[in-house]
Protein backbone atom coordinates (compact mmCIF):
# COMPACT_ATOMS: atom_id res chain seq x y z
CA UNK A 1 0.00 0.00 0.00
CA UNK A 2 1.19 3.49 -0.84
CA UNK A 3 0.83 5.90 2.08
CA UNK A 4 1.66 9.59 2.43
CA UNK A 5 2.13 10.75 6.00
CA UNK A 6 2.18 14.45 6.87
CA UNK A 7 3.91 15.48 10.07
CA UNK A 8 7.03 13.81 11.40
CA UNK A 9 6.69 14.49 15.08
CA UNK A 10 6.37 11.67 17.62
CA UNK A 11 3.04 10.48 16.27
CA UNK A 12 4.01 10.61 12.60
CA UNK A 13 7.43 9.04 13.07
CA UNK A 14 6.05 6.16 15.11
CA UNK A 15 3.30 5.48 12.60
CA UNK A 16 5.78 5.54 9.71
CA UNK A 17 8.15 3.19 11.51
CA UNK A 18 5.32 0.70 11.93
CA UNK A 19 4.06 1.06 8.35
CA UNK A 20 7.57 0.48 7.00
CA UNK A 21 7.92 -2.60 9.20
CA UNK A 22 4.73 -3.84 7.55
CA UNK A 23 6.45 -3.31 4.17
CA UNK A 24 4.20 -0.52 3.01
CA UNK A 25 5.45 2.12 0.59
CA UNK A 26 5.55 5.24 2.76
CA UNK A 27 6.66 8.84 2.36
CA UNK A 28 6.78 11.17 5.34
CA UNK A 29 6.54 14.94 4.96
CA UNK A 30 8.08 17.18 7.62
CA UNK A 31 8.55 20.92 7.36
CA UNK A 32 10.99 21.64 10.21
CA UNK A 33 14.52 21.22 8.78
CA UNK A 34 16.11 20.08 12.06
CA UNK A 35 13.40 17.49 12.57
CA UNK A 36 13.60 16.40 8.93
CA UNK A 37 17.34 15.73 9.33
CA UNK A 38 16.60 13.34 12.18
CA UNK A 39 13.96 11.58 10.13
CA UNK A 40 16.35 11.14 7.19
CA UNK A 41 18.80 9.41 9.53
CA UNK A 42 16.16 6.80 10.27
CA UNK A 43 13.97 6.69 7.16
CA UNK A 44 16.33 7.87 4.40
CA UNK A 45 14.66 9.07 1.21
CA UNK A 46 11.23 8.30 2.59
CA UNK A 47 11.45 11.55 4.58
CA UNK A 48 10.58 14.59 2.44
CA UNK A 49 11.24 18.17 3.55
CA UNK A 50 8.38 20.61 3.00
CA UNK A 51 5.00 22.01 3.96
CA UNK A 52 2.46 19.24 3.40
CA UNK A 53 -0.29 21.79 2.77
CA UNK A 54 1.51 22.86 -0.42
CA UNK A 55 0.33 20.86 -3.37
CA UNK A 56 3.75 20.59 -5.02
CA UNK A 57 5.12 19.10 -1.79
CA UNK A 58 2.33 16.53 -1.69
CA UNK A 59 3.06 15.71 -5.31
CA UNK A 60 6.77 15.35 -4.60
CA UNK A 61 5.79 12.89 -1.89
CA UNK A 62 3.93 10.86 -4.49
CA UNK A 63 0.35 11.63 -3.54
CA UNK A 64 -0.69 11.66 -7.20
CA UNK A 65 0.88 8.29 -8.03
CA UNK A 66 -1.77 7.71 -6.59
CA UNK A 67 -1.60 7.05 -2.86
CA UNK A 68 -4.01 4.64 -1.20
CA UNK A 69 -3.85 6.38 2.12
CA UNK A 70 -3.07 9.86 3.46
CA UNK A 71 -2.47 10.48 7.15
CA UNK A 72 -2.52 14.09 8.39
CA UNK A 73 -0.68 13.89 11.69
CA UNK A 74 0.80 17.35 12.21
CA UNK A 75 0.38 19.30 15.41
CA UNK A 76 -1.79 21.86 13.66
CA UNK A 77 -5.48 21.12 13.16
CA UNK A 78 -6.01 23.63 10.35
CA UNK A 79 -3.08 22.09 8.47
CA UNK A 80 -4.44 18.60 9.04
CA UNK A 81 -7.85 19.60 7.75
CA UNK A 82 -6.46 21.18 4.61
CA UNK A 83 -4.13 18.22 4.00
CA UNK A 84 -7.12 15.87 4.20
CA UNK A 85 -9.21 17.99 1.86
CA UNK A 86 -6.38 18.25 -0.67
CA UNK A 87 -5.68 14.51 -0.49
CA UNK A 88 -9.33 13.54 -0.79
CA UNK A 89 -10.68 16.17 -3.17
CA UNK A 90 -7.68 17.19 -5.27
CA UNK A 91 -5.88 13.85 -5.50
CA UNK A 92 -8.73 11.39 -4.95
CA UNK A 93 -6.94 9.49 -2.20
CA UNK A 94 -9.52 6.90 -1.13
CA UNK A 95 -8.73 6.93 2.57
CA UNK A 96 -7.71 9.91 4.68
CA UNK A 97 -7.20 9.98 8.42
CA UNK A 98 -6.61 13.08 10.51
CA UNK A 99 -5.17 13.72 13.90
CA UNK A 100 -7.21 16.23 15.91
CA UNK A 101 -5.03 18.04 18.43
CA UNK A 102 -7.57 20.31 20.09
CA UNK A 103 -10.84 18.45 20.75
CA UNK A 104 -12.74 21.70 20.23
CA UNK A 105 -11.79 21.48 16.55
CA UNK A 106 -13.49 18.10 16.13
CA UNK A 107 -16.68 19.84 15.00
CA UNK A 108 -14.82 21.42 12.08
CA UNK A 109 -13.53 18.04 10.88
CA UNK A 110 -17.06 16.66 11.16
CA UNK A 111 -18.54 19.65 9.35
CA UNK A 112 -16.11 19.32 6.46
CA UNK A 113 -16.69 15.61 6.16
CA UNK A 114 -13.33 14.36 7.38
CA UNK A 115 -14.86 11.33 9.01
CA UNK A 116 -11.84 9.44 10.20
CA UNK A 117 -10.20 11.35 12.97
CA UNK A 118 -8.20 10.48 16.05
CA UNK A 119 -8.05 12.81 19.01
CA UNK A 120 -5.83 11.67 21.86
CA UNK A 121 -7.21 14.24 24.28
CA UNK A 122 -10.82 13.27 23.57
CA UNK A 123 -10.02 9.56 23.83
CA UNK A 124 -8.35 10.04 27.18
CA UNK A 125 -11.23 12.16 28.44
CA UNK A 126 -13.64 9.50 27.23
CA UNK A 127 -11.82 6.92 29.32
CA UNK A 128 -11.90 9.24 32.32
CA UNK A 129 -15.65 9.69 31.91
CA UNK A 130 -16.11 5.93 31.92
CA UNK A 131 -14.33 5.83 35.25
CA UNK A 132 -16.40 8.60 36.78
CA UNK A 133 -20.05 7.53 36.80
CA UNK A 134 -21.04 10.68 38.71
CA UNK A 135 -20.38 12.62 35.59
CA UNK A 136 -23.80 11.44 34.48
CA UNK A 137 -23.16 10.69 30.82
CA UNK A 138 -21.03 7.89 29.45
CA UNK A 139 -20.16 7.59 25.78
CA UNK A 140 -20.79 4.00 24.80
CA UNK A 141 -20.41 3.99 21.06
CA UNK A 142 -19.50 6.42 18.36
CA UNK A 143 -20.66 5.77 14.80
CA UNK A 144 -18.67 8.42 13.01
CA UNK A 145 -19.70 7.58 9.50
CA UNK A 146 -23.36 7.69 10.48
CA UNK A 147 -22.77 10.82 12.58
CA UNK A 148 -24.40 9.17 15.57
CA UNK A 149 -23.37 8.21 19.03
CA UNK A 150 -24.93 6.22 21.79
CA UNK A 151 -24.64 7.41 25.39
CA UNK A 152 -25.85 6.24 28.75
CA UNK A 153 -27.31 8.70 31.21
CA UNK A 154 -27.61 8.07 34.91
CA UNK A 155 -30.80 9.67 36.21
CA UNK A 156 -30.75 10.86 39.80
CA UNK A 157 -33.24 12.59 42.11
CA UNK A 158 -32.35 16.07 40.86
CA UNK A 159 -32.88 15.23 37.22
CA UNK A 160 -35.35 17.57 35.53
CA UNK A 161 -36.70 14.51 33.71
CA UNK A 162 -37.79 12.64 36.87
CA UNK A 163 -41.46 11.76 36.84
CA UNK A 164 -41.87 12.85 33.22
CA UNK A 165 -43.00 10.70 30.37
CA UNK A 166 -40.45 10.25 27.59
CA UNK A 167 -42.87 11.86 25.14
CA UNK A 168 -42.89 15.00 27.26
CA UNK A 169 -39.14 15.48 27.49
CA UNK A 170 -37.62 17.87 25.01
CA UNK A 171 -34.53 16.24 23.59
CA UNK A 172 -32.24 17.75 20.92
CA UNK A 173 -33.16 17.35 17.26
CA UNK A 174 -31.76 14.14 15.88
CA UNK A 175 -31.68 12.38 19.24
CA UNK A 176 -33.94 9.78 20.82
CA UNK A 177 -34.15 7.92 24.10
CA UNK A 178 -33.79 4.24 23.28
CA UNK A 179 -34.19 2.29 26.46
CA UNK A 180 -34.48 2.51 30.22
CA UNK A 181 -32.64 0.15 32.53
CA UNK A 182 -34.33 -0.20 35.92
CA UNK A 183 -33.74 -2.78 38.66
CA UNK A 184 -31.40 -4.68 36.38
CA UNK A 185 -33.96 -4.94 33.60
CA UNK A 186 -33.93 -3.02 30.38
CA UNK A 187 -36.99 -1.99 28.42
CA UNK A 188 -37.35 -0.07 25.21
CA UNK A 189 -38.48 3.49 25.81
CA UNK A 190 -41.66 4.70 24.18
CA UNK A 191 -43.49 7.97 24.67
CA UNK A 192 -45.37 6.66 27.69
CA UNK A 193 -42.32 5.41 29.60
CA UNK A 194 -41.88 7.40 32.82
CA UNK A 195 -38.36 8.32 33.89
CA UNK A 196 -37.52 7.59 37.55
CA UNK A 197 -34.52 8.27 39.80
CA UNK A 198 -31.92 5.51 39.46
CA UNK A 199 -32.80 4.82 35.83
CA UNK A 200 -30.05 4.33 33.33
CA UNK A 201 -31.23 5.73 30.03
CA UNK A 202 -29.66 4.87 26.69
CA UNK A 203 -29.91 7.58 24.05
CA UNK A 204 -28.82 7.92 20.47
CA UNK A 205 -27.80 11.41 19.39
CA UNK A 206 -25.85 13.47 16.93
CA UNK A 207 -22.36 14.31 18.16
CA UNK A 208 -22.29 17.87 19.43
CA UNK A 209 -25.72 17.80 21.07
CA UNK A 210 -24.48 16.13 24.28
CA UNK A 211 -24.75 19.28 26.37
CA UNK A 212 -28.32 19.86 25.28
CA UNK A 213 -29.26 16.29 26.13
CA UNK A 214 -27.46 16.58 29.44
CA UNK A 215 -29.51 19.66 30.29
CA UNK A 216 -32.73 17.84 29.44
CA UNK A 217 -32.02 14.73 31.48
CA UNK A 218 -29.45 15.50 34.14
CA UNK A 219 -29.47 18.06 36.88
CA UNK A 220 -28.23 21.45 35.80
CA UNK A 221 -24.67 22.03 36.83
Amino acid at each position, binding site marked *: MKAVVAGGGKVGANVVRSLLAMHHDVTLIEQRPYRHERLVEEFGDAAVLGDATEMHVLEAAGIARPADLALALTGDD*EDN*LVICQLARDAYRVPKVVARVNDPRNQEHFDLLGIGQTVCAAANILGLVEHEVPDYGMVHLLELRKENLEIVELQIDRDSPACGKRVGGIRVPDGSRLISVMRNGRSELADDSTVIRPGDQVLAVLEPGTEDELRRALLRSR
Partner: protein
Amino acid sequence: MKLVVIGCGRVGSAVARDFAADGWEVTAVDQKKEALGRLGDAWEGRFVVGHGMDSQILRRAGAHEADAVVVATNGDNTNLVIAQVVQKRFGVENVVVRVLDPARAQFYATLGLQTVCPTQTAISELGNRVRRTAQVLA
Protein backbone atom coordinates in the same frame (compact mmCIF):
# COMPACT_ATOMS: atom_id res chain seq x y z
CA MET B 1 -25.46 45.59 6.09
CA LYS B 2 -23.31 43.60 8.48
CA LEU B 3 -19.72 42.60 7.83
CA VAL B 4 -17.47 40.43 9.98
CA VAL B 5 -13.74 40.67 9.33
CA ILE B 6 -11.65 37.87 10.79
CA GLY B 7 -7.99 38.75 11.17
CA CYS B 8 -7.36 42.41 11.87
CA GLY B 9 -3.92 42.87 10.40
CA ARG B 10 -2.94 45.33 7.68
CA VAL B 11 -5.42 43.89 5.22
CA GLY B 12 -8.30 43.04 7.53
CA SER B 13 -8.21 46.34 9.39
CA ALA B 14 -8.17 48.35 6.17
CA VAL B 15 -11.15 46.41 4.81
CA ALA B 16 -12.97 46.91 8.12
CA ARG B 17 -12.38 50.67 8.10
CA ASP B 18 -13.35 50.96 4.46
CA PHE B 19 -16.72 49.28 5.00
CA ALA B 20 -17.37 51.11 8.26
CA ALA B 21 -16.83 54.38 6.37
CA ASP B 22 -19.39 53.15 3.85
CA GLY B 23 -21.93 52.79 6.61
CA TRP B 24 -21.73 49.03 7.18
CA GLU B 25 -22.00 47.59 10.67
CA VAL B 26 -18.54 46.06 11.00
CA THR B 27 -17.19 43.60 13.57
CA ALA B 28 -13.47 42.86 13.53
CA VAL B 29 -12.04 39.71 15.13
CA ASP B 30 -8.43 39.19 16.10
CA GLN B 31 -6.53 36.97 18.51
CA LYS B 32 -4.55 39.93 19.78
CA LYS B 33 -6.30 42.79 21.50
CA GLU B 34 -3.57 45.16 20.30
CA ALA B 35 -5.00 44.75 16.79
CA LEU B 36 -7.78 47.12 17.85
CA GLY B 37 -5.24 49.93 17.45
CA ARG B 38 -5.14 49.29 13.69
CA LEU B 39 -8.78 50.32 13.45
CA GLY B 40 -7.98 53.88 14.53
CA ASP B 41 -9.13 56.06 17.42
CA ALA B 42 -12.46 56.84 15.81
CA TRP B 43 -13.48 53.14 15.45
CA GLU B 44 -17.18 52.81 16.16
CA GLY B 45 -17.62 49.23 15.05
CA ARG B 46 -17.28 46.17 17.25
CA PHE B 47 -14.10 44.32 18.06
CA VAL B 48 -13.96 40.76 19.38
CA VAL B 49 -10.77 39.24 20.79
CA GLY B 50 -10.43 35.55 20.03
CA HIS B 51 -9.51 32.90 17.49
CA GLY B 52 -11.64 32.50 14.39
CA MET B 53 -11.46 28.71 14.71
CA ASP B 54 -13.58 29.03 17.84
CA SER B 55 -17.26 28.78 16.86
CA GLN B 56 -18.30 30.68 19.97
CA ILE B 57 -16.09 33.58 18.97
CA LEU B 58 -17.58 33.51 15.48
CA ARG B 59 -21.07 33.59 16.97
CA ARG B 60 -20.13 36.39 19.35
CA ALA B 61 -18.86 38.30 16.34
CA GLY B 62 -22.23 37.77 14.70
CA ALA B 63 -21.11 35.45 11.89
CA HIS B 64 -24.56 33.78 11.99
CA GLU B 65 -26.29 37.03 11.05
CA ALA B 66 -23.63 38.58 8.83
CA ASP B 67 -24.32 39.63 5.26
CA ALA B 68 -20.69 39.10 4.42
CA VAL B 69 -17.52 37.76 6.03
CA VAL B 70 -13.93 38.52 5.08
CA VAL B 71 -11.29 36.06 6.33
CA ALA B 72 -7.77 37.47 6.34
CA THR B 73 -5.68 36.11 9.19
CA ASN B 74 -2.01 35.50 8.50
CA GLY B 75 -2.46 31.74 8.00
CA ASP B 76 -3.69 30.30 4.71
CA ASN B 77 -4.97 27.08 6.23
CA THR B 78 -6.59 28.85 9.14
CA ASN B 79 -8.35 31.13 6.66
CA LEU B 80 -9.50 28.22 4.52
CA VAL B 81 -10.97 26.35 7.46
CA ILE B 82 -12.66 29.41 8.98
CA ALA B 83 -14.13 30.40 5.62
CA GLN B 84 -15.65 26.95 5.14
CA VAL B 85 -17.01 26.92 8.69
CA VAL B 86 -18.61 30.33 8.18
CA GLN B 87 -20.05 29.20 4.86
CA LYS B 88 -21.29 25.79 5.95
CA ARG B 89 -22.14 26.17 9.64
CA PHE B 90 -23.36 29.74 9.67
CA GLY B 91 -24.79 29.74 6.16
CA VAL B 92 -23.12 32.95 5.02
CA GLU B 93 -23.07 33.06 1.22
CA ASN B 94 -20.81 36.06 0.78
CA VAL B 95 -17.54 34.81 2.25
CA VAL B 96 -14.28 36.07 0.80
CA VAL B 97 -11.00 34.56 1.94
CA ARG B 98 -7.41 35.58 1.46
CA VAL B 99 -5.05 32.78 0.46
CA LEU B 100 -1.40 33.60 -0.25
CA ASP B 101 -0.57 30.30 -1.95
CA PRO B 102 -1.84 30.41 -5.57
CA ALA B 103 -2.24 26.64 -5.81
CA ARG B 104 -4.44 26.38 -2.75
CA ALA B 105 -6.36 29.52 -3.74
CA GLN B 106 -7.17 27.97 -7.09
CA PHE B 107 -8.09 24.58 -5.69
CA TYR B 108 -10.43 25.95 -3.02
CA ALA B 109 -12.05 28.18 -5.61
CA THR B 110 -13.07 24.96 -7.37
CA LEU B 111 -14.63 23.83 -4.08
CA GLY B 112 -16.82 26.93 -4.08
CA LEU B 113 -14.89 29.40 -1.95
CA GLN B 114 -14.32 32.97 -3.07
CA THR B 115 -10.55 33.10 -2.72
CA VAL B 116 -8.41 36.18 -3.23
CA CYS B 117 -4.74 35.52 -3.85
CA PRO B 118 -2.48 38.57 -3.50
CA THR B 119 0.48 36.49 -4.67
CA GLN B 120 -1.25 35.64 -7.93
CA THR B 121 -2.23 39.27 -8.36
CA ALA B 122 1.40 40.32 -7.88
CA ILE B 123 2.64 37.68 -10.32
CA SER B 124 0.16 38.73 -13.00
CA GLU B 125 0.63 42.43 -12.45
CA LEU B 126 4.44 42.29 -12.44
CA GLY B 127 4.34 40.39 -15.72
CA ASN B 128 1.82 42.79 -17.25
CA ARG B 129 3.90 45.84 -16.35
CA VAL B 130 7.08 44.35 -17.76
CA ARG B 131 5.36 43.39 -21.02
CA ARG B 132 3.69 46.76 -21.37
CA THR B 133 6.94 48.64 -20.75
CA ALA B 134 8.80 46.35 -23.14
CA GLN B 135 6.25 47.23 -25.84
CA VAL B 136 6.67 50.93 -25.19
CA LEU B 137 10.45 50.64 -25.37
CA ALA B 138 10.41 48.51 -28.52
